[in-house]
């Protein structure tokens, strides 16, 4: 499984229900992240690399799941990290770094997906190329899942990705995507239903 930041801490903590573990992990990650950010602000490349390694896998995966293009996802994740780097000096260490970074990633991914859709509307050739490329590239994920996600609009995919890959709460998703919380909840429900339906159809 792709590691959740702080997962090793959870593993060490032993007993406890899943919610408590996640909260504990978040707290520990927050504390260690603050140290890393402070060190990175002070010029420690080691700390910067640790921050990068901590968040890159999910950033890249999240971008891919929204844009369905591995090269674009890599670019989006890189740009997000460069944006984070530019803001590093001014970054308020009390704010969690991961959610802030992932919010940038997902919003950029949505923008990218929208702009590609726009291009397809003016250039049908792009759509054909896009469709041809799609089935081959699932980036190690279940091909069926990727295909099922592909049938959702980018904004719907983003909600799913934020919730089930990046562990945002519905409230955090609402804030990140600037939409009412009720919309987030309904999109999550509908998204799950549609994924179930599509995956069932594929079988």
């Amino acid at each position, binding site marked *: 499984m792709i590691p959740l930041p702080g997962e090793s801490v959870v593993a060490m903590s032993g007993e406890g229900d899943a919610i408590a573990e996640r909260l504990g992990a978040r707290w520990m990650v927050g504390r260690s992240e603050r140290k890393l950010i402070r060190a990175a602000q002070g010029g420690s490349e080691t700390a910067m690399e640790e921050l990068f390694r901590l968040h890159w896998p999910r950033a890249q*995966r999240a971008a891919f799941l929204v844009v369905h293009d591995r090269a674009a996802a890599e670019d989006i994740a890189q740009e997000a990290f460069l944006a984070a780097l530019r803001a590093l000096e001014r970054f308020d260490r009390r704010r969690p770094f991961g959610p802030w970074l992932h919010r*940038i990633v997902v919003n*950029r991914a949505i923008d990218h997906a929208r702009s590609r859709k726009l291009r397809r509307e003016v250039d049908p050739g792009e759509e054909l190329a896009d469709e041809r490329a799609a089935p081959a590239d699932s980036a190690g994920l279940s091909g069926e899942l990727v295909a099922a996600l592909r049938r959702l609009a980018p904004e719907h995919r983003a909600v799913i990705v934020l919730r089930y890959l990046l562990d945002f709460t519905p409230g955090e998703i609402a*804030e990140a995507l600037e939409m009412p919380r009720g919309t987030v909840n309904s999109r999550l429900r509908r998204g799950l239903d549609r994924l179930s339906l599509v995956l069932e159809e594929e079988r």
Partner: protein
Amino acid sequence: MSEQRLRELLGADITAAEREAEERGWAVVKAAYAERAAAPRPRSQRALVLALAGAALLLALLFSPAGAQVREWIGDVVQPGEENAARSLTALPAPGRVLVTSEHGPWIVDEDGSKRALGPYDEAAWSPNGRFVAVSRNRELVAVVADSATVGEPVGDIRWSYGARAAVRDIAWSPSGVRVAFHSGSDLRLIRGDGIDPRVLAREVAPVRPAWRPLTAAERATVDPATGIATGAKNVLAYVGADQAVHLLDVDSGEELWRSARLPDGVRALTWSPDGHSLLVLGAGFYSLYRADGQLELKGAVPGAYAAAFSPMGEWVSVIGAEETANGARSVVWLVDPDGAARNRRLYAGPGRFADPTWSPDGSTLLVPWPAADQWLFLDPAEPGKANAVTGISRKFDPGGRGPAVFPHVSGWCCTP
């Protein structure tokens, strides 16, 4: 499909291709980080972040005809710094007082070069007429006397203080004198110029210093000479919200006058033209120019540009950008004519990074701090390529210090009439 199953599917093991992408990503980020770390950064400097990975200054392309006509002094510079820099700051080359924030706190530099420390504070900002300076010390916002002649109290005396819930930074005193905006944690907060009536203006705002709209000519006419307060002025503030859009707020009525479309991430600075007719938004690789009524006038790409400031009379916008050369990165100062491209000029260039430029109140001099050279450059807009430099700046604001001194941040040159 259960939520648990979906989590498992989305969190499938990382593939070899993803690992390779991670290594490529790290190479890019590492290079950008190394470039950023190369320039010394004062601890308290909250202003613009300098590093831009691999970016070239598009301005050089846009405005190269003017640049081509000036003497090619850049290639001669190998080590950062002007060779014939003065060792002492015996006088400022233009009227006014410079506010400097060092690692040990802010200082006021008078026109004759004398300096006065204000105390152990983190950040500092002039009041509009230079009578006071708003300073911060962690969660505390403090107004201290900066001009004993007009206030009648010693410089550095505390006039009022306010304890916020989170660290105070990005202080901006309104041109009318009656409001002070600042960030506290992620909130944008406001307090009256006499230190009372604090309130939250917005939450979860972007870490970009808010910018007050300058006074109009009619509003300037309402300034009370005895107090320096513009009694008939509106207090209008631009800030970048959590939605990554610029908001313009009449803080007295609470009315939001306009809100821009969402901007790309990385907005660095908001700068008003002196007449208050235009608001320049400078971001990471882009700029947008808005009219005071919110209409977008211009926008474009400026890769490498990281600082911009209108001259006090509005005839120039100084723009600083990074440029890649065979010998490494260097910074370039451009003067851009906001009315058209005809008079744009390349004013100065040197290796390393320049810090935020500051105009003298009369617009005759541009002060460009040069951390890598430990120098201040005083540039004359009429003389491209020429600089009056003063060296040893760090130690001047850390007298008696034993270890390496941190290069200080210039917080303003007071005060435009």
